[in-house]
């Protein structure tokens, strides 16, 4: 998978790319940036009707849970693109991709499907949070998080960008990652028939001359792999030159905050992260 990292983006690109070349009704806000909500009022659809339509028309490519199959993961599509946009993609398709237009479904049907996808995608973010975001921000800064994570253009480049993490992950999910970062690492969107691939997965590579490189997988194919080490340096390795190449599952470059943060502090930090729903600058 070349550029595991970019698959998510690519998936998004498919959608957005089409917008640039495909015309949509004037209800859309052209200046929209990812993460922000569409200016158009969400079309009111019936998720239950949508479920049947989805399984009939969409699940074959996008998976029965919209988590991706032959086509990309679209669980977050309504959240990141806006309902009207997704509805339009359903009806008009995405040029130059296998996503054909399901014009026969009609506006109502498309709205129903969008409603269903929203339901699928928003299972987590419907939760509520206790804790104080402002306190959480202080904890975030004092605990060294910015060294690895970037928010709105500020911070490090080792871990995932958190600018709009609140729009993507729910509180319990974030909480769990702070406790046990190595468990269920984020996954890329499912592109093609490849299943989802784990992001930030640690690898340990030993070259034939014994040189050891440990780092996060940034890109991999059957013959080469690119790792990013803890200093953020890229190492491009040719597999035939490697004595061994091992995944280090459950391991992460991120420390656990189980023992370093009180449960109150944890709630505050989670509350802060959940509040991060902004667009990238």
């Amino acid at each position, binding site marked *: 998978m070349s550029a595991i990292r970019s698959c998510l983006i690519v998936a998004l690109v498919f959608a957005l790319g*089409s917008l640039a*070349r*495909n*015309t949509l009704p004037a209800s859309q806000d052209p200046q929209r940036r990812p993460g922000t909500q569409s200016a158009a009022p969400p079309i009111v659809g019936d998720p239950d009707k949508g479920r049947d339509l989805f399984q009939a028309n969409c699940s074959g490519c996008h998976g029965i849970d919209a988590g991706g199959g032959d086509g990309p993961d679209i669980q977050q599509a309504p959240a990141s693109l806006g309902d009207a946009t997704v509805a339009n993609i359903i009806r008009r398709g995405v*040029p*130059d991709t296998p996503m054909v237009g399901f014009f026969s479904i009609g506006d109502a049907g498309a709205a129903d499907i969008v409603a269903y996808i929203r339901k699928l995608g928003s299972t987590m973010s419907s939760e509520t949070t206790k804790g104080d975001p402002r306190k959480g921000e202080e904890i975030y800064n004092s605990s060294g998080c910015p060294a690895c994570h970037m928010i709105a253009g500020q911070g490090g480049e080792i871990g995932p960008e958190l600018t709009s993490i609140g729009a993507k992950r729910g509180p319990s999910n974030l909480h769990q990652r702070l406790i046990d970062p190595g468990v269920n690492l984020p996954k890329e969107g499912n592109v093609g028939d490849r299943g989802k691939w784990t992001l930030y997965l640690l690898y340990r590579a030993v070259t034939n001359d014994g040189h050891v490189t440990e780092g996060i997988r940034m890109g991999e194919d059957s013959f080469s792999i690119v790792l990013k080490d803890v200093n953020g340096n890229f190492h491009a390795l040719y597999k035939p030159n490697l004595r061994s190449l091992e995944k280090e599952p459950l391991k992460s470059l991120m420390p656990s905050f189980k023992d370093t943060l009180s449960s109150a502090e944890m709630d505050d930090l989670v509350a802060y992260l959940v509040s991060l729903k902004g667009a990238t600058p």
Partner: protein
Amino acid sequence: MSAIRSLAVATLILVLCGLPHSLLAASPNGKQQAGPGAQADLDVGRQAYVANCSRCHGLYATGGDGPNIQRAPITLGNDGVIKIIKNGVPGTMMTAFNLDDTQIGAIIAYIRSLGRRNEPPMPTRGDKVKGQTVYDGNGCAGCHTIDGQGGSLGPELTQIGSLRQPDMLRQTLLDPGNALPTTAPNRDRGKWVLYTIFRAVQRDGKVVEGMRVSESTFAIVLEDAKSNFHSLSKANLRSLEKEPRKTYMPSFKDTLSAAQLDDIVAYLSSLRDLSDTRNAQ
């Protein structure tokens, strides 16, 4: 230029592929719609056209950076052209123009006025039925294809009546080498002469003479009189010369009577099948 022969085709393909298919569907009813043709409109249309379209499609819509669109209103229908002007063509240089409907209507009227200029009148003299026997009796079918029947050395004539003026057809019959057909102006390359005969002398002295069907800076493919392709690397050639005005088609100046000439021109002019060949089946 790779595939010189297919340039015309290619231009067409550009249009067809580029268009949302909906526009293609408009073709049948397209013929019925007549654009507003008042002279005043035409002036407005020319202004608007020159300002917005001529840079890519040429002042007379015969193409330039973009394809030849003289026949677009006829083959796509007014609605088709309106959609294209308003929405652009996804994935091509044809972007959307926010012009008001009167402007667009005037532009289409102008294009139609150009198109008409190319709509050949039916010849007054000659009997197309007799003409067909002349066509069959003089071996034309040995080199030309009509509705899937005939040879492949010369241009297909299935639609020749709508592409060429009667007097031009007559000219070609009398002096085939003069005014060979050209491609539509393509991108920034201008038109290219089709069916140009080249004489290539290889280093070993072997001579290949044939029509250019494909040429690049380093290679050329010639089709000889027996319709065999010869793929030549220019590095292996001692000389490569155009033979302007030469053609594989004989002149019928002395072989056909004036009456016969009128008849065959009438026959050729009657070949105006614009429908997709296969849908005719």
